[in-house]
């Protein structure tokens, strides 16, 4: 679509610098973002809500702050998209579900307040798999999001909307959530950077819960530096979240250029077995790039990680079945009436939840039920320990681990919806990290038949520093064509 308003946006770091110095106006930056959205969103459906008026008003406030000689913060004027499972006061928040269609939260998530306080401007709420359950964003009650690289393909999930919004150049940064890979996998499929922080590093207060011991909020960005900047803004202790780590992390942006000289890098061989050849090739190339930069690279087998998928699909649905019980038609959201409250609950939930959510609620209820708890849930929690031990052992010999993010590139819409298990396998390489509570990220590295392939970097808890150093090196060694943002491609237009 030539002559369109699409333009590769400036990255967040440079935008903020320009707005803070008065060189650029936030109003103009945000208007340009909104124009790109207006032109191309229809083909992609990244957003459930675009907050045009609020965004313009917020941008004007930022400009006023600058004009008054004050500093709006490190993300001044930067347009940001937020996954639609983050509570935003006064702005509809659906979690991709009919059961919360039209729900307006009376409060902001902590991360929402943090990014606003840093001067970022929210332009909309992005589409997701319903209640973050899925790996393709096809489980959204409001229709799928399309991959900007090929609109017949999925952007990945569950944070598909946020990944695609960054990949399509709508915004330079976005927030998503990751429970089993829901930031990293879509980042890989969309050619952008996606980070899942250490569990507890970023407050979960205001994140609509899926699996409480696994969920984390994290950044999407085009550049590693922008991802680090955004993570610096949202990381840190929150008294409103009991599982929030009481740490004041060192700013990551300062560490990015430290390089990887002497760093011990382990390539997880177990993950290469079932990955597609192009994905495996990308990982090998990435390993070489790191070796070329002075890292000590070796293959390592961590077999216990392969138990992760099974443990995850016992633990996550169990926690979800409890977290989603509150959607009962009583206090907010959808209500389908009934002659008594029990039937009202059942009719509401049946009408309000999609099939994947129902499957997971039923599976979760089952594994927690009397007589099955120990064999399933109890066992899964013990397997979780095995996964953690596997990692711990590997981290006695290596500083970071690398591997593929996703077994494949972006698949076609509808290709995996018939078989839930096939979809679950998309998360094979990302799940172990969530079980251990560790950080990991995906950096776009290579192209395979015109579609991006991300490489995953894993680190032990609070190892974000070394993880980002590796990511920075990989970013420099990546195929530039493999990295977003790209002008969204129309259906039928060949790659």
């Amino acid at each position, binding site marked *: 679509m030539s002559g369109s308003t699409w333009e590769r946006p400036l990255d967040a770091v440079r935008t903020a610098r320009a707005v803070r110095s008065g060189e650029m106006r936030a109003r103009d930056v945000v208007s340009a973002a909104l124009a790109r959205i207006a032109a191309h969103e229809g083909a992609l459906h990244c957003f459930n809500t675009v907050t045009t008026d609020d965004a313009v008003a917020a941008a004007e406030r930022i400009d006023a702050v600058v004009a008054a000689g004050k500093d709006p913060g490190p993300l001044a004027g930067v347009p940001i998209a937020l996954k639609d499972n983050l509570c935003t006061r006064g702005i509809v928040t659906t979690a991709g579900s009919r059961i919360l269609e039209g729900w307006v939260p*009376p409060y902001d998530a902590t991360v929402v307040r943090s990014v606003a306080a840093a001067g970022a401007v929210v332009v909309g709420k992005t589409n997701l798999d319903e209640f973050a359950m899925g790996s393709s964003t096809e489980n959204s009650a409001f229709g799928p999001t399309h991959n900007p690289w090929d609109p017949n393909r999925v952007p990945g999930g569950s944070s598909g909307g946020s990944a695609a919004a960054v990949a399509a150049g709508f915004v330079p940064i976005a927030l998503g959530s990751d429970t089993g890979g829901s930031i990293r996998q879509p980042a890989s499929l969309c050619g952008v950077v996606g980070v899942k922080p250490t*569990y*507890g590093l970023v407050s979960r207060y205001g994140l609509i819960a899926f699996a409480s*011991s696994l969920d984390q909020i994290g950044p999407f960005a085009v550049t590693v530096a922008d991802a680090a900047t955004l993570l610096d803004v949202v990381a840190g202790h929150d008294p409103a979240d*009991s*599982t929030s*780590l009481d740490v004041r992390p060192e700013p990551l942006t300062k560490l990015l250029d430290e390089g990887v000289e002497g760093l011990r890098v382990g390539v997880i061989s177990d993950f290469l077995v079932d990955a597609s050849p192009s994905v495996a090739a990308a990982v090998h190339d990435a390993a070489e790039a790191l070796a070329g930069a002075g890292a000590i690279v070796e293959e390592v087998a961590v077999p216990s990680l392969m*138990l992760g998928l*099974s*443990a995850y*699909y*016992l633990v996550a649905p169990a926690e979800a*079945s409890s977290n989603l*019980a509150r959607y*009962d*038609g*009583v*206090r*907010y*959201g*959808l*209500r389908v009436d*009934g*002659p*008594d*409250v*029990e*039937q*009202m*609950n*059942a*009719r509401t*939930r*049946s009408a309000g*939840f999609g099939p994947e959510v*129902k*499957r997971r*609620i*039923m599976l979760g*209820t*089952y594994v927690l*039920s009397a007589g*099955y708890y120990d*064999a*399933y849930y*109890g*066992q899964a*929690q*013990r*397997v*979780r*320990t*095995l996964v*953690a031990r596997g990692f711990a052992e590997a981290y006695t010999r290596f500083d970071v681990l690398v591997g593929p993010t996703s077994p494949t590139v972006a698949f076609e819409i509808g290709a995996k919806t018939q078989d*839930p*298990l096939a979809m679950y396998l998309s998360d094979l390489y990302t799940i172990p990290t969530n*079980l*251990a*509570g560790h950080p990991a990220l995906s950096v776009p590295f290579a192209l395979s038949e015109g579609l991006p392939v991300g490489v995953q970097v894993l680190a032990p*808890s609070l190892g974000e520093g070394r993880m980002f150093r590796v990511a920075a090196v990989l970013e420099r060694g990546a195929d530039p064509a493999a990295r977003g943002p790209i002008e969204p491609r129309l259906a039928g237009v060949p790659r």
Partner: protein
Amino acid sequence: MPEVSASFSRDDVVYVARLARLELEPGEVDLYAGQLASILDHVAAVTGLDTSAVPATAHPLEIENVLRSDTPGSTLARDEVLAQAPRAEGGRFRVPPILGEVP
């Protein structure tokens, strides 16, 4: 580890649907039973593992005693609370009659 039958029967679906307040059409019961059985078969790979010597990880963190002081904070305005209510009356949330007793 005791052998657990890794199948999800029709009765199981009916049972958990009731516990989870989900109303399923008769056709759905069979569909879900099939899907859940196949998922459970796959994940049940772990149920056979010997983990007798392994402690459970309930949580990735190892912190304890996170507490807050007993100081009143802000509450929500009632209008805002009830504005989202599907049905309200006299400042309260209104629901159809409750048949069951408190468990």
